[in-house]
């Protein structure tokens, strides 16, 4: 359970995030939807405690991120905007390193690697250095690495960005299975179909603020149109910007 309230972030004169409030429940997929530069990544960085908010609070399973960032990180699995791997290490070693950093025992790491390899279809790649991996393969390893400790809360920043259709499908499948396992999944995207296909709850972010939130049906209703994409365009205020 991730609860964000009145979250704001200022970089000098720029207000990247201005009072974002939403909650991501357990056993549900919550989508943070917005055009590029809307403040999605900044919001997720504050959720994962890497950025300190200028105002507002983040609570993960009731724990305050500002007061106890290490405890919050322990309850989160984060696929951040930057997702570089160690090219000279194998996929297995990349995953194991994060397991060690999270204090898992050798056997627990091995078991988690096997479980995640099945979930993300990584099997044949495990013992190859990641330097030669395709973008989709690297993404899968980065996700596996973030989930090695079987976190209750999963934060994914644009997980399907730049992936081909097959990899995207397999990732969506993985997200559904995380939901079935009762996880709280919070992910961001600027692609409407992505969110429509997966989310139980949508939070539309525009210019650093929440433009609308609710179930896909509620969002459609709020925008007064049947088509979710049309709703997104209207609510995110893209239309006005695009036209001179």
């Amino acid at each position, binding site marked *: 359970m991730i609860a964000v309230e009145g979250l704001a972030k200022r970089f000098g004169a720029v207000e990247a995030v201005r009072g974002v409030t939403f909650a991501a429940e357990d056993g549900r997929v919550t989508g943070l939807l917005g055009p590029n530069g809307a403040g999605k990544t900044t919001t997720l960085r504050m959720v994962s405690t890497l950025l300190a908010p200028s105002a507002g609070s983040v609570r993960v399973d009731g724990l305050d991120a500002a007061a106890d960032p290490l405890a919050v990180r322990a309850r989160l699995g984060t696929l951040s905007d930057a997702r570089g791997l160690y090219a000279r*290490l194998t996929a297995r070693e990349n995953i194991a*390193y994060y397991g060690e950093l999270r204090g898992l025992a050798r056997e627990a790491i091995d078991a988690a690697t096997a479980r995640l390899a099945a979930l993300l279809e990584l099997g044949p790649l495990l013992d190859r250095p990641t330097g030669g991996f395709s973008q989709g393969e690297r993404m899968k390893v980065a996700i596996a690495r973030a989930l090695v400790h079987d976190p209750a809360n999963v934060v994914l920043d644009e997980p399907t960005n730049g992936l081909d259709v097959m990899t995207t499908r397999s990732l969506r499948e993985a997200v559904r299975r995380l939901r079935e396992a009762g996880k709280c999944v919070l992910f961001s995207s600027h692609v409407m179909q992505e969110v429509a296909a997966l989310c139980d709850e949508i939070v539309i972010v525009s210019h650093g603020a929440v433009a609308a939130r609710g179930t896909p049906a509620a969002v459609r209703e709020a925008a007064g149109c049947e088509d979710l994409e049309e709703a997104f365009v209207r609510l995110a205020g893209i239309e006005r910007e695009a036209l001179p």
Partner: protein
Amino acid sequence: MIARVLAVYLKEVRDALRDRRTALMILVASVITGPLTLVLVAHFVSGLESRATTLKVRIAGASHAPALVNFLQRADVEIEKAPADYEARVRQGTLDAVIVVPEDFHERWLAQDDARVRLVYDDSRTESGPAIRQAERLLEAFNRETAWLRLMARGVSPSVSETVKVDRVNAATPRQKGAVLLFLIPMFALLAPLLGGMTIAIDATAGERERGSLEPLLANPVPTAAFALGKWLAAWTSAAAVAAVTLAGFLVAAVTYAERKVPALQFGAPEYGRFLLLAVPLAAATAGVQMLIATYGRSYREAQTYVSYLATAVSFIPLAVMFTGARDAAWQAAVPALGQLMAMQRVLRGDALAVMDYAVPAAVALAIAAASVAAVARLLRDERIVFGRS
């Protein structure tokens, strides 16, 4: 905390060892260049000594100066006839110095009428120095002897012509002469940790930023101090290992070749051990400072540029000491790199070092390392460092 530090440490060491090309390059550079230089310098120095120790002069027109020849023969000096093209040869460097005697020398000498010889040499080449000085000294001695004999013939005491007698006493022990040659080993002992620590120091900081692996790394529930500590330990290990290997190369070169050529030189197992006692703590400081500097680099290359300034600064220290001829002083122990350098030179001169001579530079180095690690840990919490890519 210790388990996390260890995990970071092992990952960095493993990652660095996987980079075979870099590891090999560093190893070859450190193992080959230093000892090779030592062998070459030893060869050069032993050549100098053999030129200076066998008394030999080259004379053109020896038959015009029977008295001089007689003097030289009495002094056990080997006389060699100079070839006709001696001037060209001196210029080329195949001859060091030639005494040229004109035809009318003997008559003028007997008549005490402005008898002259010419000494032809080229002092722009340092290796000719001993031979030139030798020829000068022999001519002076001949001069003095002639003067004495003439004064005595007139009933004057020879001491009139020599108011001050100079007895030469060379205070340099054979080992101290070797220390001049062995400026080389301390220099490499200071630079080897810089070379050895650089790759990990950069890869673990600027490299993480460039790859985009720093942000996800810091999302782990681990204090940044554990990352800084583990990464620094890995860089220190590498720096110390390269220093140990480099000095081992010198040990082998000294024992198998250089010590035979230059008996004054002594770099055996005890000296090797003492050098490591000085170089390994220094490596802690250089690895820490390199890491701190590299953390500001947004890319590997950028960090490499910053870090190379440190190597330049450190390599300047031995040169400054060499050219200013700095003497040992207590305050030097507190200056990183300089303290180690002066102590290493004392080891090579055969001086005994006290515990404090090792402890003070080591304490300073470890304090610098601790401050650097703390600063890196703080930087890793800085938003500009963590997200300031490109």
